Protein backbone atom coordinates (compact mmCIF):
# COMPACT_ATOMS: atom_id res chain seq x y z
CA UNK A 1 0.00 0.00 0.00
CA UNK A 2 1.48 3.31 -1.03
CA UNK A 3 1.06 6.28 1.15
CA UNK A 4 1.75 9.77 -0.03
CA UNK A 5 2.28 10.97 3.52
CA UNK A 6 3.64 8.95 6.41
CA UNK A 7 1.61 9.04 9.64
CA UNK A 8 4.29 11.12 11.34
CA UNK A 9 4.26 13.60 8.44
CA UNK A 10 0.49 14.00 8.85
CA UNK A 11 0.93 14.66 12.56
CA UNK A 12 3.62 17.28 11.88
CA UNK A 13 1.33 18.95 9.35
CA UNK A 14 -1.51 19.00 11.90
CA UNK A 15 0.87 20.61 14.38
CA UNK A 16 1.91 23.29 11.87
CA UNK A 17 -1.73 23.92 10.96
CA UNK A 18 -2.54 24.36 14.65
CA UNK A 19 0.32 26.87 15.06
CA UNK A 20 -0.91 28.79 12.01
CA UNK A 21 -4.50 28.89 13.28
CA UNK A 22 -3.44 30.12 16.73
CA UNK A 23 -1.26 32.83 15.16
CA UNK A 24 -4.04 33.89 12.80
CA UNK A 25 -6.67 34.11 15.54
CA UNK A 26 -4.55 36.14 17.96
CA UNK A 27 -3.13 38.33 15.19
CA UNK A 28 -6.65 39.23 14.08
CA UNK A 29 -7.53 40.27 17.65
CA UNK A 30 -4.32 42.07 18.58
CA UNK A 31 -1.73 43.29 16.06
CA UNK A 32 1.00 42.98 18.70
CA UNK A 33 0.99 39.17 18.51
CA UNK A 34 3.22 38.56 15.50
CA UNK A 35 5.98 41.01 16.38
CA UNK A 36 9.65 40.29 16.97
CA UNK A 37 9.44 41.62 20.53
CA UNK A 38 6.51 39.37 21.39
CA UNK A 39 8.21 36.39 19.77
CA UNK A 40 11.26 36.93 21.99
CA UNK A 41 9.02 37.21 25.05
CA UNK A 42 7.21 34.05 24.01
CA UNK A 43 10.45 32.07 23.75
CA UNK A 44 11.62 33.33 27.13
CA UNK A 45 8.32 32.33 28.69
CA UNK A 46 8.57 28.96 27.01
CA UNK A 47 12.07 28.41 28.42
CA UNK A 48 10.93 27.79 32.01
CA UNK A 49 7.99 25.48 31.35
CA UNK A 50 9.73 23.85 28.38
CA UNK A 51 12.87 22.89 30.33
CA UNK A 52 10.81 21.44 33.21
CA UNK A 53 8.62 19.57 30.72
CA UNK A 54 11.64 18.04 28.97
CA UNK A 55 12.81 16.62 32.29
CA UNK A 56 9.32 15.32 33.01
CA UNK A 57 9.33 13.64 29.58
CA UNK A 58 11.92 11.11 30.81
CA UNK A 59 9.67 10.17 33.74
CA UNK A 60 6.55 9.92 31.56
CA UNK A 61 8.42 7.76 29.03
CA UNK A 62 9.17 5.42 31.95
CA UNK A 63 5.36 5.35 32.56
CA UNK A 64 5.91 6.94 35.95
CA UNK A 65 4.67 10.20 37.47
CA UNK A 66 6.62 12.87 39.29
CA UNK A 67 4.61 15.14 41.57
CA UNK A 68 7.64 16.45 43.46
CA UNK A 69 8.55 19.08 40.84
CA UNK A 70 6.99 22.00 42.72
CA UNK A 71 8.68 21.11 46.01
CA UNK A 72 12.04 20.57 44.30
CA UNK A 73 11.64 23.93 42.55
CA UNK A 74 11.12 25.72 45.86
CA UNK A 75 14.12 24.01 47.42
CA UNK A 76 16.47 24.74 44.51
CA UNK A 77 15.27 28.35 44.34
CA UNK A 78 16.04 28.88 48.03
CA UNK A 79 19.36 27.03 47.75
CA UNK A 80 20.24 29.37 44.91
CA UNK A 81 19.45 32.42 47.06
CA UNK A 82 21.37 31.05 50.02
CA UNK A 83 24.55 30.17 48.12
CA UNK A 84 24.43 33.48 46.26
CA UNK A 85 24.08 35.49 49.45
CA UNK A 86 26.97 33.61 51.09
CA UNK A 87 29.48 33.34 48.25
CA UNK A 88 28.40 36.19 45.99
CA UNK A 89 29.75 34.21 43.04
CA UNK A 90 27.72 32.99 40.10
CA UNK A 91 29.31 29.63 39.28
CA UNK A 92 28.92 27.87 42.67
CA UNK A 93 25.38 29.27 42.87
CA UNK A 94 24.38 27.79 39.54
CA UNK A 95 26.01 24.46 40.37
CA UNK A 96 24.33 24.28 43.79
CA UNK A 97 20.91 25.08 42.35
CA UNK A 98 21.14 22.31 39.75
CA UNK A 99 22.85 19.85 42.12
CA UNK A 100 20.11 20.05 44.77
CA UNK A 101 17.49 19.39 42.08
CA UNK A 102 19.51 16.44 40.84
CA UNK A 103 19.87 15.09 44.38
CA UNK A 104 16.10 15.21 45.04
CA UNK A 105 15.46 13.52 41.69
CA UNK A 106 18.00 10.77 42.41
CA UNK A 107 16.33 10.15 45.79
CA UNK A 108 12.99 9.82 43.99
CA UNK A 109 14.50 7.42 41.50
CA UNK A 110 16.25 5.32 44.14
CA UNK A 111 13.08 4.99 46.25
CA UNK A 112 10.96 4.07 43.22
CA UNK A 113 13.60 1.90 41.54
CA UNK A 114 15.46 0.13 44.32
CA UNK A 115 12.89 0.69 47.09
CA UNK A 116 10.02 -0.54 44.85
CA UNK A 117 7.80 2.20 46.31
CA UNK A 118 4.84 3.53 44.28
CA UNK A 119 5.92 6.54 42.21
CA UNK A 120 3.03 8.91 42.91
CA UNK A 121 3.07 8.67 46.70
CA UNK A 122 6.86 8.67 46.88
CA UNK A 123 7.23 11.80 44.79
CA UNK A 124 4.47 13.58 46.72
CA UNK A 125 6.32 12.75 49.95
CA UNK A 126 9.74 13.76 48.63
CA UNK A 127 8.23 16.95 47.20
CA UNK A 128 6.71 17.90 50.53
CA UNK A 129 9.93 17.16 52.38
CA UNK A 130 11.82 19.34 49.88
CA UNK A 131 9.21 22.09 50.26
CA UNK A 132 9.63 21.98 54.03
CA UNK A 133 13.42 22.13 53.71
CA UNK A 134 13.09 25.22 51.50
CA UNK A 135 11.72 27.05 54.55
CA UNK A 136 14.77 26.05 56.56
CA UNK A 137 16.79 28.70 54.69
CA UNK A 138 16.28 32.13 56.16
CA UNK A 139 13.04 31.05 57.88
CA UNK A 140 11.27 31.09 54.52
CA UNK A 141 11.98 34.78 53.85
CA UNK A 142 13.12 35.99 50.41
CA UNK A 143 16.79 36.24 49.48
CA UNK A 144 17.83 39.19 47.34
CA UNK A 145 21.50 39.72 48.37
CA UNK A 146 24.17 39.84 45.66
CA UNK A 147 21.64 39.47 42.85
CA UNK A 148 22.95 42.54 41.05
CA UNK A 149 26.62 42.46 42.07
CA UNK A 150 27.08 38.85 40.96
CA UNK A 151 25.25 39.33 37.68
CA UNK A 152 22.47 36.87 38.56
CA UNK A 153 19.78 39.15 37.15
CA UNK A 154 21.64 39.50 33.86
CA UNK A 155 21.04 35.78 33.23
CA UNK A 156 17.55 36.72 32.22
CA UNK A 157 18.38 39.23 29.46
CA UNK A 158 22.05 38.87 28.48
CA UNK A 159 22.78 37.09 25.24
CA UNK A 160 25.09 34.28 24.10
CA UNK A 161 25.78 34.22 20.34
CA UNK A 162 23.01 36.77 19.96
CA UNK A 163 20.46 34.55 21.69
CA UNK A 164 18.94 35.42 25.04
CA UNK A 165 20.30 33.16 27.78
CA UNK A 166 16.91 31.57 28.69
CA UNK A 167 16.29 30.68 25.06
CA UNK A 168 19.88 29.50 24.71
CA UNK A 169 19.41 27.22 27.74
CA UNK A 170 16.16 25.92 26.24
CA UNK A 171 17.89 25.05 22.95
CA UNK A 172 20.92 23.47 24.64
CA UNK A 173 18.70 21.41 26.94
CA UNK A 174 16.61 20.29 23.97
CA UNK A 175 19.69 19.26 22.00
CA UNK A 176 21.33 17.37 24.87
CA UNK A 177 18.21 15.62 26.18
CA UNK A 178 16.99 14.92 22.65
CA UNK A 179 20.31 13.37 21.68
CA UNK A 180 20.45 11.38 24.91
CA UNK A 181 16.89 10.03 24.74
CA UNK A 182 16.67 9.35 21.02
CA UNK A 183 20.17 8.73 19.72
CA UNK A 184 21.90 6.72 22.44
CA UNK A 185 21.54 3.13 23.49
CA UNK A 186 20.88 4.10 27.09
CA UNK A 187 18.19 6.54 26.00
CA UNK A 188 16.35 3.79 24.17
CA UNK A 189 16.24 1.74 27.36
CA UNK A 190 13.90 4.39 28.80
CA UNK A 191 11.25 3.42 26.25
CA UNK A 192 11.96 -0.27 26.86
CA UNK A 193 11.68 0.11 30.63
CA UNK A 194 8.43 2.02 30.19
CA UNK A 195 6.91 -0.60 27.86
CA UNK A 196 7.96 -3.69 29.77
CA UNK A 197 10.22 -3.37 32.80
CA UNK A 198 10.50 -7.12 33.33
CA UNK A 199 11.61 -7.86 29.78
CA UNK A 200 14.03 -4.94 30.00
CA UNK A 201 15.46 -6.36 33.21
CA UNK A 202 16.01 -9.77 31.61
CA UNK A 203 17.65 -8.22 28.57
CA UNK A 204 20.40 -7.04 30.89
CA UNK A 205 19.44 -3.45 31.57
CA UNK A 206 19.30 -2.21 35.14
CA UNK A 207 15.80 -0.75 35.26
CA UNK A 208 16.59 0.68 38.69
CA UNK A 209 19.46 2.73 37.28
CA UNK A 210 17.30 3.90 34.39
CA UNK A 211 14.75 5.15 36.95
CA UNK A 212 17.43 6.95 38.93
CA UNK A 213 18.74 8.67 35.80
CA UNK A 214 15.21 9.54 34.62
CA UNK A 215 14.02 11.07 37.89
CA UNK A 216 17.48 12.65 38.32
CA UNK A 217 17.24 14.44 34.97
CA UNK A 218 13.74 15.66 35.86
CA UNK A 219 15.04 17.08 39.16
CA UNK A 220 18.16 18.64 37.67
CA UNK A 221 16.19 20.36 34.91
CA UNK A 222 13.86 21.86 37.51
CA UNK A 223 17.03 23.43 38.94
CA UNK A 224 17.95 24.83 35.50
CA UNK A 225 14.45 26.26 35.05
CA UNK A 226 14.65 27.88 38.48
CA UNK A 227 17.87 29.69 37.46
CA UNK A 228 15.88 31.43 34.75
CA UNK A 229 12.79 32.07 36.84
CA UNK A 230 14.68 33.44 39.86
CA UNK A 231 16.93 35.66 37.74
CA UNK A 232 13.76 37.05 36.19
CA UNK A 233 12.07 37.72 39.54
CA UNK A 234 15.27 39.14 41.08
CA UNK A 235 14.92 37.34 44.40
CA UNK A 236 14.64 33.77 45.70
CA UNK A 237 11.35 32.84 47.27
CA UNK A 238 9.77 29.62 48.56
CA UNK A 239 6.70 30.02 46.35
CA UNK A 240 8.85 29.94 43.20
CA UNK A 241 7.69 26.46 42.21
CA UNK A 242 3.97 26.93 42.69
CA UNK A 243 3.06 27.21 39.04
CA UNK A 244 5.28 24.72 37.24
CA UNK A 245 3.48 21.38 37.56
CA UNK A 246 0.37 21.91 35.44
CA UNK A 247 2.13 23.50 32.42
CA UNK A 248 4.78 20.76 32.48
CA UNK A 249 2.22 17.93 32.37
CA UNK A 250 0.18 19.79 29.76
CA UNK A 251 3.27 20.23 27.53
CA UNK A 252 4.22 16.56 27.70
CA UNK A 253 0.71 15.17 27.15
CA UNK A 254 -0.21 17.68 24.46
CA UNK A 255 3.04 16.89 22.65
CA UNK A 256 2.43 13.16 22.98
CA UNK A 257 -1.11 13.63 21.63
CA UNK A 258 0.20 15.64 18.68
CA UNK A 259 3.13 13.47 17.65
CA UNK A 260 1.93 10.04 18.78
CA UNK A 261 4.20 9.35 21.75
CA UNK A 262 6.11 11.20 24.43
CA UNK A 263 9.48 12.43 23.14
CA UNK A 264 11.64 15.53 23.36
CA UNK A 265 10.45 17.03 20.02
CA UNK A 266 6.85 16.25 21.02
CA UNK A 267 7.27 17.98 24.38
CA UNK A 268 8.78 21.03 22.65
CA UNK A 269 5.82 21.11 20.25
CA UNK A 270 3.35 20.83 23.12
CA UNK A 271 5.17 23.47 25.11
CA UNK A 272 5.22 25.83 22.11
CA UNK A 273 1.48 25.57 21.49
CA UNK A 274 0.62 26.00 25.16
CA UNK A 275 2.96 29.00 25.54
CA UNK A 276 1.55 30.59 22.35
CA UNK A 277 -1.95 30.39 23.81
CA UNK A 278 -0.89 31.70 27.24
CA UNK A 279 1.11 34.48 25.61
CA UNK A 280 -1.92 35.49 23.57
CA UNK A 281 -4.11 35.56 26.67
CA UNK A 282 -1.55 37.71 28.48
CA UNK A 283 -1.55 40.17 25.56
CA UNK A 284 -5.34 40.35 25.80
CA UNK A 285 -4.87 40.96 29.57
CA UNK A 286 -7.05 38.02 30.57
CA UNK A 287 -6.65 37.29 34.32
CA UNK A 288 -4.31 34.49 35.33
CA UNK A 289 -7.01 32.19 36.70
CA UNK A 290 -8.68 31.92 33.30
CA UNK A 291 -5.32 30.93 31.83
CA UNK A 292 -5.10 28.14 34.40
CA UNK A 293 -8.53 26.92 33.34
CA UNK A 294 -7.41 26.97 29.70
CA UNK A 295 -4.21 25.02 30.46
CA UNK A 296 -6.26 22.44 32.40
CA UNK A 297 -8.72 22.18 29.54
CA UNK A 298 -5.91 21.63 27.02
CA UNK A 299 -4.54 18.92 29.30
CA UNK A 300 -7.86 17.02 29.30
CA UNK A 301 -8.20 17.32 25.54
CA UNK A 302 -4.62 16.11 25.16
CA UNK A 303 -5.15 13.03 27.35
CA UNK A 304 -8.32 12.16 25.46
CA UNK A 305 -6.57 12.53 22.08
CA UNK A 306 -3.53 10.55 23.29
CA UNK A 307 -5.77 7.69 24.42
CA UNK A 308 -5.21 4.59 22.23
CA UNK A 309 -8.95 3.94 21.97
CA UNK A 310 -9.61 7.39 20.55
CA UNK A 311 -6.70 7.01 18.12
CA UNK A 312 -8.26 3.74 16.97
CA UNK A 313 -11.64 5.41 16.60
CA UNK A 314 -10.17 8.16 14.42
CA UNK A 315 -8.22 5.70 12.29
CA UNK A 316 -10.85 3.05 11.78
CA UNK A 317 -14.29 3.83 13.21
CA UNK A 318 -15.94 0.63 12.00
CA UNK A 319 -13.43 -1.68 13.65
CA UNK A 320 -13.55 0.40 16.82
CA UNK A 321 -17.29 -0.10 17.23
CA UNK A 322 -17.10 -3.78 16.31
CA UNK A 323 -14.42 -4.55 18.91
CA UNK A 324 -15.85 -2.34 21.63
CA UNK A 325 -19.46 -3.42 21.41
CA UNK A 326 -18.60 -7.13 21.31
CA UNK A 327 -16.82 -7.13 24.66
Amino acid at each position, binding site marked *: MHRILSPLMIRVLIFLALVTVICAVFQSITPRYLTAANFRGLLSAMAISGIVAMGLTFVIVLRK*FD*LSLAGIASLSAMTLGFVLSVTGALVPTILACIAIGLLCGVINGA*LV*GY*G*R*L*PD*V*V*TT*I*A*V*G*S*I*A*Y*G*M*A*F*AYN*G*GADYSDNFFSSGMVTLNFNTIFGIQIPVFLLLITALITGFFLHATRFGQSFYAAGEN*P*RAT*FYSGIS*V*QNVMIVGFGIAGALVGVAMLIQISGIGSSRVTAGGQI*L*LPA*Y*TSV*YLGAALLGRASIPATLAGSLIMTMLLNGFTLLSI*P*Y*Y*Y*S*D*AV*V*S*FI*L*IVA*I*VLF*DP*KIVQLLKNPRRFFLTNTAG
Partner: protein
Amino acid sequence: MQSDKQEAVSGLFSNFGLPFLLVILFIFFSSITDTFLTAANLEGLILSAAISGLLFLGLTWVFTIGEMDVSFVAVAALANMITAGMVIGGYGWPLATFCAIAAAVFVGFFNGFLIAKMRLPSLVTTIATGGMASALAAAIGLGSSMGIEETGYLEVLFDTKIGIISMVVLLTLTIIAACWYVEEKLTLGHYIFSMATNPRAALEAGIPTARITIILCVFSAICSGAAGILLAVQLASGQPSIAQSLFLDGLTAVLLGGTMLKLGKPNILGTMVGVLIIAVLVRGGALLGWSDAAFSTIKGLLLLFGVAVVVWTNKSSSDIR
Protein backbone atom coordinates in the same frame (compact mmCIF):
# COMPACT_ATOMS: atom_id res chain seq x y z
CA MET B 1 7.28 -21.33 60.40
CA GLN B 2 9.50 -18.41 59.69
CA SER B 3 6.99 -16.81 57.36
CA ASP B 4 4.12 -17.40 59.80
CA LYS B 5 5.99 -15.60 62.51
CA GLN B 6 6.89 -12.79 60.15
CA GLU B 7 3.26 -12.50 59.07
CA ALA B 8 2.07 -12.35 62.65
CA VAL B 9 4.55 -9.58 63.43
CA SER B 10 3.64 -7.57 60.37
CA GLY B 11 -0.07 -8.16 61.07
CA LEU B 12 0.35 -6.87 64.61
CA PHE B 13 2.25 -3.90 63.33
CA SER B 14 -0.24 -3.06 60.61
CA ASN B 15 -3.30 -3.43 62.86
CA PHE B 16 -2.07 -1.57 65.89
CA GLY B 17 0.89 0.48 64.65
CA LEU B 18 -1.09 3.57 63.75
CA PRO B 19 -3.39 3.73 66.82
CA PHE B 20 -0.27 3.16 68.90
CA LEU B 21 1.46 6.09 67.16
CA LEU B 22 -1.63 8.22 67.83
CA VAL B 23 -1.60 7.39 71.54
CA ILE B 24 2.15 8.02 71.79
CA LEU B 25 1.81 11.43 70.11
CA PHE B 26 -1.13 12.33 72.33
CA ILE B 27 0.75 11.44 75.51
CA PHE B 28 3.88 13.17 74.24
CA PHE B 29 2.16 16.50 73.55
CA SER B 30 0.05 16.29 76.73
CA SER B 31 3.13 15.87 78.90
CA ILE B 32 5.42 18.31 77.14
CA THR B 33 3.01 21.27 76.95
CA ASP B 34 0.60 22.65 79.53
CA THR B 35 -1.96 23.81 77.02
CA PHE B 36 -2.47 20.68 74.93
CA LEU B 37 -4.81 18.91 77.35
CA THR B 38 -7.17 21.87 77.80
CA ALA B 39 -10.82 21.93 76.73
CA ALA B 40 -10.26 24.82 74.30
CA ASN B 41 -7.41 23.08 72.52
CA LEU B 42 -9.16 19.72 72.34
CA GLU B 43 -12.31 21.39 71.03
CA GLY B 44 -10.34 22.98 68.21
CA LEU B 45 -8.53 19.72 67.55
CA ILE B 46 -11.75 17.70 67.29
CA LEU B 47 -13.43 20.30 65.09
CA SER B 48 -10.57 20.54 62.61
CA ALA B 49 -10.25 16.74 62.58
CA ALA B 50 -13.99 16.43 61.90
CA ILE B 51 -13.92 18.81 58.94
CA SER B 52 -10.83 17.25 57.36
CA GLY B 53 -12.23 13.80 58.16
CA LEU B 54 -15.31 14.67 56.12
CA LEU B 55 -13.13 16.08 53.35
CA PHE B 56 -11.12 12.84 53.01
CA LEU B 57 -13.99 10.41 53.64
CA GLY B 58 -15.06 9.79 50.06
CA LEU B 59 -11.50 10.15 48.83
CA THR B 60 -10.59 7.01 50.76
CA TRP B 61 -12.73 4.72 48.60
CA VAL B 62 -11.50 6.28 45.36
CA PHE B 63 -7.98 5.38 46.46
CA THR B 64 -9.17 1.93 47.61
CA ILE B 65 -10.19 0.95 44.09
CA GLY B 66 -6.78 2.03 42.88
CA GLU B 67 -7.64 5.36 41.31
CA MET B 68 -5.85 8.62 42.15
CA ASP B 69 -7.95 11.69 42.86
CA VAL B 70 -5.96 14.87 43.36
CA SER B 71 -8.86 17.24 42.63
CA PHE B 72 -10.40 17.03 46.11
CA VAL B 73 -8.93 20.28 47.46
CA ALA B 74 -9.98 22.12 44.31
CA VAL B 75 -13.55 20.80 44.71
CA ALA B 76 -13.60 21.97 48.33
CA ALA B 77 -12.31 25.40 47.25
CA LEU B 78 -14.91 25.59 44.47
CA ALA B 79 -17.80 24.74 46.84
CA ASN B 80 -16.38 27.19 49.35
CA MET B 81 -16.21 30.04 46.81
CA ILE B 82 -19.63 29.30 45.28
CA THR B 83 -21.17 29.44 48.76
CA ALA B 84 -19.41 32.69 49.59
CA GLY B 85 -20.11 34.27 46.21
CA MET B 86 -23.81 33.42 46.20
CA VAL B 87 -24.41 34.42 49.84
CA ILE B 88 -22.72 37.77 49.19
CA GLY B 89 -24.73 38.08 45.98
CA GLY B 90 -27.92 37.85 48.07
CA TYR B 91 -29.14 34.41 47.05
CA GLY B 92 -29.26 33.18 50.66
CA TRP B 93 -27.58 30.23 52.34
CA PRO B 94 -29.94 27.39 51.30
CA LEU B 95 -29.65 28.06 47.56
CA ALA B 96 -25.91 28.79 47.87
CA THR B 97 -25.15 25.49 49.60
CA PHE B 98 -27.38 23.61 47.14
CA CYS B 99 -25.50 25.07 44.18
CA ALA B 100 -22.15 24.38 45.83
CA ILE B 101 -23.04 20.70 46.29
CA ALA B 102 -24.43 20.56 42.75
CA ALA B 103 -21.13 21.90 41.40
CA ALA B 104 -19.24 19.31 43.44
CA VAL B 105 -21.47 16.54 42.06
CA PHE B 106 -20.80 17.79 38.55
CA VAL B 107 -17.01 17.73 39.00
CA GLY B 108 -17.21 14.30 40.63
CA PHE B 109 -19.36 12.91 37.83
CA PHE B 110 -17.02 14.41 35.23
CA ASN B 111 -14.04 12.76 36.97
CA GLY B 112 -15.86 9.44 37.22
CA PHE B 113 -17.02 9.56 33.62
CA LEU B 114 -13.51 10.28 32.29
CA ILE B 115 -11.91 7.62 34.50
CA ALA B 116 -14.50 4.85 34.28
CA LYS B 117 -16.10 5.28 30.88
CA MET B 118 -13.28 6.85 28.86
CA ARG B 119 -10.72 4.88 30.90
CA LEU B 120 -8.32 7.82 31.11
CA PRO B 121 -5.44 7.75 33.61
CA SER B 122 -6.97 9.08 36.83
CA LEU B 123 -3.99 11.07 38.12
CA VAL B 124 -3.49 13.31 35.09
CA THR B 125 -7.24 13.58 34.54
CA THR B 126 -7.85 14.85 38.05
CA ILE B 127 -4.83 17.18 37.85
CA ALA B 128 -6.64 18.75 34.90
CA THR B 129 -10.19 18.77 36.35
CA GLY B 130 -8.77 20.04 39.65
CA GLY B 131 -6.96 22.79 37.77
CA MET B 132 -10.22 23.83 36.13
CA ALA B 133 -12.15 23.73 39.40
CA SER B 134 -9.60 25.86 41.25
CA ALA B 135 -9.39 28.29 38.33
CA LEU B 136 -13.17 28.65 38.49
CA ALA B 137 -12.98 29.11 42.28
CA ALA B 138 -10.42 31.90 41.83
CA ALA B 139 -12.53 33.46 39.07
CA ILE B 140 -15.58 33.75 41.36
CA GLY B 141 -13.69 36.03 43.73
CA LEU B 142 -11.64 37.59 40.88
CA GLY B 143 -8.54 36.06 42.40
CA SER B 144 -9.02 37.18 46.00
CA SER B 145 -10.93 35.99 49.05
CA MET B 146 -14.39 37.22 50.07
CA GLY B 147 -15.73 37.84 53.58
CA ILE B 148 -19.28 36.69 54.36
CA GLU B 149 -21.35 39.04 56.55
CA GLU B 150 -24.63 37.13 56.63
CA THR B 151 -24.90 34.11 58.92
CA GLY B 152 -26.96 31.19 57.75
CA TYR B 153 -28.75 28.06 58.90
CA LEU B 154 -25.49 26.12 59.15
CA GLU B 155 -24.26 28.37 61.95
CA VAL B 156 -26.39 26.31 64.36
CA LEU B 157 -24.18 23.30 63.73
CA PHE B 158 -21.17 25.14 65.09
CA ASP B 159 -22.95 26.92 67.96
CA THR B 160 -24.86 24.01 69.46
CA LYS B 161 -22.47 22.10 71.69
CA ILE B 162 -22.58 19.21 74.10
CA GLY B 163 -19.55 19.86 76.28
CA ILE B 164 -16.72 20.40 73.80
CA ILE B 165 -18.41 18.40 71.04
CA SER B 166 -20.32 20.58 68.60
CA MET B 167 -23.11 19.44 66.26
CA VAL B 168 -20.74 19.51 63.30
CA VAL B 169 -18.58 16.88 64.95
CA LEU B 170 -21.57 14.69 65.82
CA LEU B 171 -22.94 14.98 62.29
CA THR B 172 -19.56 14.08 60.79
CA LEU B 173 -19.17 11.15 63.18
CA THR B 174 -22.59 9.86 62.13
CA ILE B 175 -21.67 10.07 58.44
CA ILE B 176 -18.34 8.34 59.09
CA ALA B 177 -20.06 5.60 61.08
CA ALA B 178 -22.57 5.10 58.26
CA CYS B 179 -19.73 4.83 55.74
CA TRP B 180 -17.92 2.35 57.93
CA TYR B 181 -21.13 0.27 58.08
CA VAL B 182 -21.43 0.38 54.29
CA GLU B 183 -17.79 -0.63 53.91
CA GLU B 184 -17.89 -3.55 56.35
CA LYS B 185 -21.44 -4.89 56.15
CA LEU B 186 -23.09 -3.99 52.86
CA THR B 187 -22.56 -5.49 49.42
CA LEU B 188 -21.18 -2.20 48.10
CA GLY B 189 -18.31 -2.48 50.58
CA HIS B 190 -17.51 -5.99 49.37
CA TYR B 191 -17.66 -4.78 45.77
CA ILE B 192 -15.24 -1.95 46.56
CA PHE B 193 -12.66 -4.27 48.10
CA SER B 194 -13.09 -6.89 45.39
CA MET B 195 -12.35 -4.14 42.86
CA ALA B 196 -9.32 -3.22 44.95
CA THR B 197 -7.97 -6.77 44.93
CA ASN B 198 -8.69 -7.70 41.32
CA PRO B 199 -10.66 -5.28 39.12
CA ARG B 200 -10.68 -7.71 36.19
CA ALA B 201 -12.15 -10.54 38.25
CA ALA B 202 -14.67 -8.13 39.76
CA LEU B 203 -15.81 -7.15 36.28
CA GLU B 204 -16.01 -10.78 35.12
CA ALA B 205 -18.04 -11.63 38.22
CA GLY B 206 -20.66 -9.16 37.06
CA ILE B 207 -19.91 -6.27 39.38
CA PRO B 208 -20.74 -2.99 37.62
CA THR B 209 -17.24 -1.59 38.15
CA ALA B 210 -17.68 1.46 35.92
CA ARG B 211 -20.87 2.51 37.71
CA ILE B 212 -19.27 1.99 41.14
CA THR B 213 -16.24 4.06 40.10
CA ILE B 214 -18.52 6.93 39.05
CA ILE B 215 -20.56 6.66 42.26
CA LEU B 216 -17.38 6.74 44.37
CA CYS B 217 -16.01 9.76 42.49
CA VAL B 218 -19.30 11.63 42.95
CA PHE B 219 -19.43 10.69 46.63
CA SER B 220 -15.84 11.86 47.11
CA ALA B 221 -16.68 15.19 45.49
CA ILE B 222 -19.82 15.59 47.65
CA CYS B 223 -17.74 15.02 50.80
CA SER B 224 -15.12 17.55 49.67
CA GLY B 225 -17.82 20.03 48.70
CA ALA B 226 -19.61 19.66 52.04
CA ALA B 227 -16.32 20.25 53.87
CA GLY B 228 -15.74 23.32 51.72
CA ILE B 229 -19.15 24.69 52.74
CA LEU B 230 -18.43 24.00 56.43
CA LEU B 231 -15.13 25.88 56.08
CA ALA B 232 -17.04 28.83 54.60
CA VAL B 233 -19.29 28.85 57.68
CA GLN B 234 -16.42 28.37 60.13
CA LEU B 235 -14.17 31.07 58.67
CA ALA B 236 -17.03 33.33 57.53
CA SER B 237 -15.26 33.78 54.24
CA GLY B 238 -14.59 32.20 50.88
CA GLN B 239 -10.95 31.67 50.02
CA PRO B 240 -9.89 30.29 46.63
CA SER B 241 -6.80 28.59 48.09
CA ILE B 242 -8.58 27.49 51.26
CA ALA B 243 -7.73 23.82 51.23
CA GLN B 244 -4.21 23.94 49.75
CA SER B 245 -2.61 22.82 53.00
CA LEU B 246 -5.16 19.99 53.22
CA PHE B 247 -3.86 18.41 50.00
CA LEU B 248 -0.89 16.74 51.64
CA ASP B 249 -2.93 16.01 54.79
CA GLY B 250 -5.49 14.15 52.73
CA LEU B 251 -3.02 11.99 50.87
CA THR B 252 -1.07 11.31 54.06
CA ALA B 253 -4.19 10.37 56.03
CA VAL B 254 -5.61 8.11 53.32
CA LEU B 255 -2.38 6.35 52.40
CA LEU B 256 -1.11 6.10 55.96
CA GLY B 257 -4.55 4.80 56.95
CA GLY B 258 -4.22 2.22 54.21
CA THR B 259 -1.35 0.67 56.15
CA MET B 260 -3.84 -0.22 58.91
CA LEU B 261 -6.25 -3.18 58.94
CA LYS B 262 -6.49 -4.02 55.23
CA LEU B 263 -2.83 -4.15 54.33
CA GLY B 264 -2.18 -1.55 51.69
CA LYS B 265 -5.83 -0.83 50.98
CA PRO B 266 -7.17 2.53 52.16
CA ASN B 267 -10.20 2.12 54.43
CA ILE B 268 -12.49 4.40 56.43
CA LEU B 269 -11.23 3.54 59.90
CA GLY B 270 -7.59 3.85 58.83
CA THR B 271 -8.20 7.24 57.23
CA MET B 272 -9.83 8.53 60.39
CA VAL B 273 -6.90 7.41 62.55
CA GLY B 274 -4.63 9.12 59.99
CA VAL B 275 -6.69 12.31 60.26
CA LEU B 276 -6.43 12.23 64.06
CA ILE B 277 -2.67 11.68 63.93
CA ILE B 278 -2.24 14.69 61.67
CA ALA B 279 -4.59 16.82 63.78
CA VAL B 280 -2.71 15.95 66.99
CA LEU B 281 0.62 16.55 65.26
CA VAL B 282 -0.42 19.93 63.85
CA ARG B 283 -2.07 21.15 67.07
CA GLY B 284 0.69 19.91 69.32
CA GLY B 285 3.43 21.13 67.01
CA ALA B 286 1.84 24.57 66.82
CA LEU B 287 1.90 24.78 70.62
CA LEU B 288 5.61 23.96 70.54
CA GLY B 289 6.12 26.69 67.96
CA TRP B 290 6.95 24.47 65.00
CA SER B 291 6.76 26.24 61.66
CA ASP B 292 4.60 25.22 58.70
CA ALA B 293 7.79 24.06 57.07
CA ALA B 294 8.45 21.53 59.81
CA PHE B 295 4.95 20.11 59.28
CA SER B 296 5.49 19.75 55.57
CA THR B 297 8.69 17.81 56.17
CA ILE B 298 7.21 15.66 58.93
CA LYS B 299 4.11 14.80 56.88
CA GLY B 300 6.32 13.89 53.95
CA LEU B 301 8.46 11.60 56.10
CA LEU B 302 5.35 10.05 57.66
CA LEU B 303 3.90 9.36 54.21
CA LEU B 304 7.14 7.83 52.98
CA PHE B 305 7.38 5.71 56.13
CA GLY B 306 3.80 4.48 55.78
CA VAL B 307 4.21 3.46 52.17
CA ALA B 308 7.55 1.81 52.85
CA VAL B 309 5.99 -0.26 55.65
CA VAL B 310 3.20 -1.46 53.35
CA VAL B 311 5.46 -2.33 50.45
CA TRP B 312 8.30 -3.86 52.41
CA THR B 313 6.26 -5.92 54.88
CA ASN B 314 4.04 -7.20 52.08
CA LYS B 315 6.71 -9.47 50.61
CA SER B 316 4.27 -11.54 48.55
CA SER B 317 3.65 -8.63 46.21
CA SER B 318 7.35 -8.06 45.63
CA ASP B 319 8.37 -7.95 42.02
CA ILE B 320 11.53 -7.63 39.99
CA ARG B 321 12.40 -3.97 39.40
